[in-house]
């Protein structure tokens, strides 16, 4: 990859890599794409993706950039339709790597039923980027009457998670820091719309959804508790975390409840719908470990409380910055 100011070289990049991958919608290059009329309330979101290394066990920056934005749409109950993709590439990035990542984006978008309809590429000088940054925006459509938002949360709501926690963060950390464990922890990066759409179709009374990314479960629940002015009480031993992730967290002195996921969400549902919602989640290939982890209690003040098996309670606080590995 060379640093250039556009022209023929950039055109060649488009012809050889982006057009074949992203297909028909980019075939008539124009300054913007005109979309079909939407059949419902439109949802719109944007996010930027930076991750080192750009290819990691269980995924890469490309699939992550698609899943992340599609998942943000899904959290409003919106079916993903269209994506944009902006690339900042660092000079020296191997073309083969770019090709691999673009291909991975294509496959991820196909799997989610979304189309990448517009994009942009810039190349920055060496040492001015971390290999590759990707920004994606997404448009989706809400085709049901549910208001999926923190303000819909009620005391008594069941709090569910869609699968085991912390795999993405530990996968990245183990590669980045060269930590060798007996097993390779793979990222949980995945689209969640399919599972969410099944919950909606089954008529589950969903009050709020939130995907678990940076800051993990703790961050997401603290944000929701604050926005909904809700007290959320969790049962620690019902929170699904795989043994390899727990072991890695124990060794490094990290709390798994603060570790990032990329394909997991929490759902607040009416208590009578919790068994149905869990059954739908668990019948999904990525939701085998889905579980009810707690409930919303009568509001005293917004806080997330964790009860352990010994019956003791503790506050699950908002993380203050990145977790740092400890001394001993």
């Amino acid at each position: 990859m060379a640093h250039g100011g556009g022209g023929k070289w950039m055109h060649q990049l488009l012809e050889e890599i982006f057009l074949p991958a992203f297909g028909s919608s980019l075939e008539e290059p124009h300054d913007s794409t005109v979309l079909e009329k939407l059949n419902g309330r439109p949802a719109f979101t944007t996010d930027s993706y930076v991750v080192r290394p750009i290819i990691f066990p269980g995924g890469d920056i490309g699939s992550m950039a698609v899943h992340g934005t599609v998942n943000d749409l899904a959290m409003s109950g919106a079916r993903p339709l269209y994506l944009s993709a902006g690339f900042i590439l660092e000079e020296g990035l191997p073309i083969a790597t770019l090709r691999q990542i673009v291909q991975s984006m294509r496959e991820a978008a196909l799997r989610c039923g979304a189309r990448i309809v517009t994009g942009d590429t810039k190349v920055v000088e060496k040492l001015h980027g971390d290999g590759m940054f990707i920004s994606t925006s997404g448009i989706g459509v809400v085709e049901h009457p549910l208001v999926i938002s923190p303000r819909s949360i009620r005391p008594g709501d069941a709090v569910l998670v869609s699968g085991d926690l912390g795999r993405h963060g530990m996968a990245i950390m183990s590669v980045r820091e060269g930590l060798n464990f007996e097993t390779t922890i793979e990222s949980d990066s995945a689209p969640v719309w399919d599972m969410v759409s099944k919950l909606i179709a089954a008529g589950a009374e969903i009050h709020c959804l939130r995907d678990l990314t940076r800051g993990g479960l703790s961050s997401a629940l603290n944000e929701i508790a604050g926005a909904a002015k809700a007290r959320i009480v969790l049962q620690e031993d019902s929170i699904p975390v795989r043994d390899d992730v727990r072991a890695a967290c124990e060794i490094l002195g990290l709390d798994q409840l603060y570790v990032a996921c990329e394909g997991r969400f929490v759902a607040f549902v009416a208590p009578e719908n919790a068994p149905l919602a869990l059954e739908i989640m668990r019948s999904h290939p990525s939701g085998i470990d889905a579980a009810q982890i707690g409930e919303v209690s009568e509001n005293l003040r917004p806080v997330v409380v964790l009860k352990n098996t010994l019956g003791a309670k503790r506050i699950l606080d908002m993380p203050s910055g990145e977790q740092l590995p400890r001394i001993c």
Partner: protein
Amino acid sequence: MKYLDEYRDATLAKKIAAEIHRVTTRPWTIMEICGGQTHAILRFGLDELLPRHISLIHGPGCPVCVTPLEIIEQALNIASREDVIFCSFGDMLRVPGCETDLLAVKARGGNVKIVYSPLDAVSIAEQNPNQEVVFFAVGFETTAPATAMAVLSASQKRLRNFSLLVSHVLVPPAMEALLSSPDCRVQGFLAAGHVCAVMGCEEYLPIANKYHVPIVVTGFEPLDILQGVLMCVKQLETGRAEVENQYARAVTQQGNQIAQRLLREIFCVVPRKWRGFGEIPRSGLGFREAYAPFDAGKKFNVAHNRVNEPAECQSGLILQGRLKPAGCPAFGNRCTPEHPLGALMVSSEGACAAYYRYRGHEENSFAKSS
């Protein structure tokens, strides 16, 4: 998970707690030495399982917390140099100096790296022969052998661009400093299991005898700690003052003798300043003359930097077990993990961090009473 869940078994924990209730007839004050134990106590709510009149007070065993401000300042000074790659364990990065911390030095472009082992810093020195690589060696007897190993390795490799800012400290002298204070409340100790895994149990015998205080070498999981408390209470109730080993799965009487030999080869015992205690004689490790070229304090001429602790931070009283974190007027308002007055609020083993994190800062008014 194997080797972990067994030691967190709720039924067994309640059984041991019931036994503690059964044997306790009087109020007792027990200090757990290690910050890892403090965090486990608060994380699992173990103090809530104990009889009301057993008071657990939190000891000075957090390596980050007891590192004096002047060493932090020396570290910041070295880390800010352009020719230096400064390597540190992760939880030193948020520890506040007088004006800044290592994370801020890194954000301003300083080359500060988090390492998991001092040997990683040796590798970095090998890979960067034109840069000075400095490892920030803090910790008790637990981490000191790994530091000694790094010095030995760098010495064998004849690395001239590798040095260490050493602030290693020793547990027994701090226990003596606590016990010889006239207002000492401690009646029994849970000694730090990992320190004893290296050093063994024998060096605690003279302390138990001289001050007539029971010392139970204790692990870090809920069952370890509860069992340690039970053993300590039984000694107190029967008037014994012995060194007992609860953590026998990791600690032997003699300790790890290879590690001890290595420590003696590289380091000698020196007086060391502790945050909250001031200077304690024979309480730290310093380089032997033969390894003095690895002393970053001398190499970068920062060893003479002297600063005093800020007055508002009560870490001295907390590290000596004379004040509980929530009893500090600054706790949770002028001192938070985002804006700490002292290391205890940011270290993963700090008592203030444990209270803030696990007990919250508004909800648990009960935590305010010490």
